[in-house]
């Protein structure tokens, strides 16, 4: 019952998180910033707008991206298989990328290309993380991971790697090359408007829920630790976002892949000796 409720409100929670983040970021920059509910006001405005479409495939793929992501979040809440969830998430990104490629727009294509490359950077890290959990808990099932004690100490290096891919997924600097606004005008989102953009907008909120739910897995059954991890990471990501400039796409992949894989490998090899 609780699960059903959380699944239903997941996008709203993501929206709140997104709104809070905007406030927090503004405060860090000594601005007042928009109200907490600004994302929802934006949504309301989007619904009222005239719907324009470039081509039907494009619009539908955007909606499907949102739905798939919601299902991914639902699966995490239900405690299904982690490895499977990571692959299903990949499917949702595939829909987004196809959407980006389905219009003949230079900016959309650049955005989709960059999204592809970013996937290349974080996907292997996610798989390694899942394997780390498997080696500790003997199972890929999230319900089992949640029932066991926290594995943040034995998986500390993988945890660091995971911290590194949060900015990639949430499009925060220094790893926000996928959405480099001034240069590529929003990337994959550029051709969406009105109600169709709303789905893309909500999907963004779901990405927040997705990534922070994965983060909580490191806390296992320790709720206090989970809360601390969430708050700490949230602050850290925004602090880094405010304090750094964007790195180039090439560097993003190089940094995440090399450092991530080295840390992950060391961690997994270490685990097999314990």
């Amino acid at each position, binding site marked *: 019952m609780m699960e059903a409720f959380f699944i239903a409100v997941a996008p709203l929670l993501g929206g709140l998180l997104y709104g809070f983040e905007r406030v927090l970021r503004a405060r860090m920059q000594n601005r007042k910033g928009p109200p907490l509910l600004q994302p929802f006001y934006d949504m309301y405005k989007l619904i009222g707008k005239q*719907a*324009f*479409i*470039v*081509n*039907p*495939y494009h*619009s*539908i*793929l955007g909606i*499907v991206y949102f739905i*798939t992501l919601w*299902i991914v979040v639902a*699966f995490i809440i*239900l405690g*299904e*298989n982690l*490895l*499977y969830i990571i*692959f*299903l998430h*990949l*499917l949702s990104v*595939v*829909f987004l*990328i*196809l959407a*980006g*490629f*389905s*219009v*003949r*727009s*230079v*900016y959309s294509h650049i955005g*989709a*290309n960059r999204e*592809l490359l970013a*996937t*290349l950077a974080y*996907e*292997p890290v996610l*798989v*390694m993380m*899942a*394997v780390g959990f*498997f*080696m500790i808990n003997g199972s*890929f099932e999230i319900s089992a991971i949640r029932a066991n004690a926290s594995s943040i100490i034995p998986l500390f290096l993988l945890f660091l790697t995971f911290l590194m891919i949060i900015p990639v997924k949430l499009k925060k600097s220094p790893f926000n090359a996928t959405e480099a606004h001034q240069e590529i*005008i929003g990337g994959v989102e*550029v*051709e969406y408007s009105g109600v169709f953009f709303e789905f893309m907008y909500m999907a963004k909120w779901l990405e927040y829920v997705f990534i922070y739910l994965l983060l909580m897995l490191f806390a296992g059954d320790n709720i206090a630790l989970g809360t601390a991890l969430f708050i700490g990471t949230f602050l850290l990501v925004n602090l880094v976002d405010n304090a750094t400039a964007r790195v180039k796409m090439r560097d993003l992949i190089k940094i995440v892949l090399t450092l991530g*894989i080295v840390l*992950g*490998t060391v961690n*997994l*090899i270490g*685990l*097999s*000796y314990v």
Partner: protein
Amino acid sequence: MTTAILIIAPLLFALAALIAPVMIRNILTILFVIALSALSLGNVFSFNTSFAFPLPNSFHELFILLDTLLLLYFLWRGIVAKNALVMLFALVQIVLYAVVVYLSPAVVSSDIFADHISSVMYLVINIVGGMIIVYALKYIESEELSRFKKNGFIAILFFFLSVMNFIVSTNNIEIFFLLFELTTLCSYLLIGYRGDELSVKNALQALWMNQIGGVAILLALVFSILEYNTLYFDVLLANIDEIYLLPVVFLAIAAFVKGASIPFDKWLIGAMVAPTPVSAILHSATMVKIAPYLMLKIFPAMSGFLSLGVTLFGTFVFFTATLLALGKDYFKEILGYSTIALLGLMMSLAAIGTPEAVTACLILIMFHAVSKALLFLQAGVLEKSFGLKYVDDIDGLVERSPLTVLFIIVGFASLTLPPFGVFIGKFMAIESISKEIINNPFYTFALIFLALGSTLLTLLYFKVVAKLFAKDVDVKPLHVKISKFYTVPSFLLLALLFVGIYMIFLSHFLSSLEFVVPLVLIVFVPILFATLLFKNAHRVKEYNCGEKDESKLGMYYFYLSDALKKGINTAAALSLLVLIAGVLL
């Protein structure tokens, strides 16, 4: 009994196809294919699928004669074409073969041996291979070849099926060697079929590379006779001693050659010059599938170092072949490298050898065959109906033939996404390797290759799919009608994919929710396409930032430098040497 029919019948069909006029040939071929498929299916459901028996001595003499003739034929081809490598390897094989025949021990075991793995292979060979032959009927008609050569083409394909059915039912390594060389012969004839300069060149390349595999098997035989005094797989495996694994490592190398693993990838990629049904049959039902099959045959003999070495090498091939594919523009070449990659993964799984890994390997063998066949058939359609070969040119195909696009998308989806079989195979692969890491940290590297490779593979496939959608709203291209000979086999393969999905559902690899959701999504998207076409929404053109210039949209490629490619090949060759050295020490 079934085995004998599966071996002999295609030989007779080949003869029939060779002499019959077109109309009768076509009808006969379709009937033959149905019969072969039914027989291989029946075999799976019959009570006694595994059996073993020896062949009479006269057969052995016949096989020795055939083998000698075949090796002499290779030597002759080398002399005619003035190809030093072909001549060299033919000579080496003749010498080694003479040694084997001279040494061959008198102890006899069963020559014919079929088990459940053979039954699975029969399914792949006869059903998938059969559909490709039906497809080839139409394809070959549109080629500029003589009547006799066209019939010969179909005949060779049937002959190929016969050889494949035999190779997966033999327990005698000497007979295995003969059949191994016969598949080399088939691929040599088929690749060079068009007879132009490039075809002949690539056919010779395929010949000498596959001969290396033959040399490896002969070496395995020599060492097996010297140490274990046997020509038979079962005796070898029963007596295997961890200290002396030379025969096993050479058999593994033969598998890598057949599987076109890097550094032997050139022959399979060169094979792309052949008519498309050849690529389809080489990649899905025959030839390269010997590689994981052979690995499955010998995995009980692999332990410790060798098992780890083969696993690492296989996953390394999985990763690097995908990397190479990302720089390619030629549709068939992309498919080719992805075959090499997945074969590497299959061989890794076989080498791990846990019951789970072996199941994963078999699942991959079956479903990869169906998916690849489906995709290669579409490659042929693209070539024949649209004159397209390069991914960069297939803009907006969805308007010209939605059916072809559907086949391509489902084909690629079935190689990557849940709940299709290949996904399950990869999923189980990660699980198997994770379990191995707990005991041996070196498997971590296999996992990393696997994780990187499978991400790259997804990117690769969807990069191609993305191109199918990109279309110009203003231009309405003509709809093209595709021949029934092309669509019917494609539909049947599609149906097989869904049968596979049903089997996966029955075997509870995924929970029912995990199973249904992606399926709904994958079906849901086309239905949404079909219903919500937004007839009333306002159509706009893309935002171009106020620029007037038309821009041509290309694809991204990862161009690997030549130095890096050389590095990959050297690394692969070195690791094979390390494998041999490690076993020797």
